[in-house]
Structure formats: structure tokens, C-alpha cells
């Protein structure tokens, strides 16, 4: 069965620190990869996605992620976090080209950035 694992459940950083959130997936075929973010009181929104091409993808708000196929990983990074990055982050995958876009999510990582 497909699964997604996020290594950190709760991360606390000071402003300007660098961020890396781990994500590994388990799936035998080709996948599309996503990072979603949920800010307090808001809906889930897409940070970035990888479908094909350059494995280093850039998203909104200075976030980027690197797809490493050999490691089944799609880690999220940001060089310098801000207080406004405090949120919950979700890694997700779906089966590329399938007739259903259902997403398989990781457990989520809560990021708290101290001012």
C-alpha cells in the first residue's frame, strides 16, 4: 500500500534559521509529489509540486523541495524561516497519470517559529 512518512512531527526554530522537513514515500510506480501548508485558521494550500522535469522545485514564499528518486524522498527546505511560516506542513503523493487524483498524506509537521 502507498504510504508517506514525515520524519518530524513538531519542529521549533528561531527566525532566520534554516528549515528542512523530511518526507519519504512508498509506492512502486511513478508519483506526483506535493507539499501543502495550513496556516492557523486557514485552509490547506499548495506550497509546491513535482510532476516531472527538474527535481529541484521552487514554490511560494521561498520554499523549495528536491525529489530524489533513489531515496523515495521529497524534502522541503527554506534557507531562512520567518515567524509567519508558523504552520502545519503536509507532504502528499498521488499516482501519476491515474484516473484518480486522490492524495496520500503524511502525518504532518507542525512548525513553530519563534520571533
Amino acid at each position, binding site marked *: 500500500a502507498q504510504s508517506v512518512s514525515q520524519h518530524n512531527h513538531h519542529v521549533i526554530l528561531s527566525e532566520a534559521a534554516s528549515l528542512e522537513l523530511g518526507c519519504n514515500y512508498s509506492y512502486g510506480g511513478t508519483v506526483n509529489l506535493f507539499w501543502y501548508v495550513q496556516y492557523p485558521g486557514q485552509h490547506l494550500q499548495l506550497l509546491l509540486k513535482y510532476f516531472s522535469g527538474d527535481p529541484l522545485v521552487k514554490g511560494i514564499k521561498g520554499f523549495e523541495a528536491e525529489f530524489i528518486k533513489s531515496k523515495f524522498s521529497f524534502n522541503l527546505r527554506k534557507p531562512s524561516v520567518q515567524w509567519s511560516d508558523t504552520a502545519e506542513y503536509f507532504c502528499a503523493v*498521488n499516482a501519476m497519470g491515474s484516473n484518480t487524483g486522490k492524495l*496520500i*498524506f503524511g502525518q504532518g509537521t507542525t512548525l513553530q517559529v519563534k520571533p
Partner: protein
Amino acid sequence: EAGVTQFPSHSVIEKGQTVTLRCDPISGHDNLYWYRRVMGKEIKFLLHFVKESKQDESGMPNNRFLAERTGGTYSTLKVQPAELEDSGVYFCASSQGGADTEAFFGQGTRLTVV
């Protein structure tokens, strides 16, 4: 353009009662998904509509859950009768296409069964 909207935002009901959640997708989005997050766990897929048809309902927990999408517009998810373990946040998402398109999420409905 309006996003995905869900009603109500919160619902507290007693065990054994019935609750109906509603989702209005983005206009023109044929694909509509329901997900659920039980506290402390991951967001889990419930089912997928393409227009008014159920494409995949493999994630529905049991027959106490009934989803409909009459006319291919808004969708409802009814829980009858509700049990304590049904508590959680129910998310709806919509997209124009299948796997290779972005899904847009609503704010979710927080359901508490007491």
C-alpha cells in the same frame, strides 16, 4: 473566483445523531474529493467524485457514511448514526483534472461527536 467552501465550519452532535456536511467546489471543477483527519493522525482519503459519479470510494470507513453529488455540483457527506470515532476534521477538495492537476481545499468542517 470563489474557492472551495464547506458548511458548517464546526458541528457538535451527540452519539447516534445524524450530521450532514456540505461542500461547494470551485465552479467548473468536475473532480471533488472528501478527506478526513482524525486528531493526531494523517489526512485520509474518503472518496472521489467525477461530476456526479463516484470514481473511488475505497476510503469510506463504513456504511454509516453516505456521500452524494447530485447534478455534479455541490456534494454532501452524511454520517448516520454518528459514533464517537467519527470526530475529526472533514476536508473537501476540488480539481479540474485527475492526478496531474492541483487540488484546492476547503477550510474543513470540524465534527465533534459527544
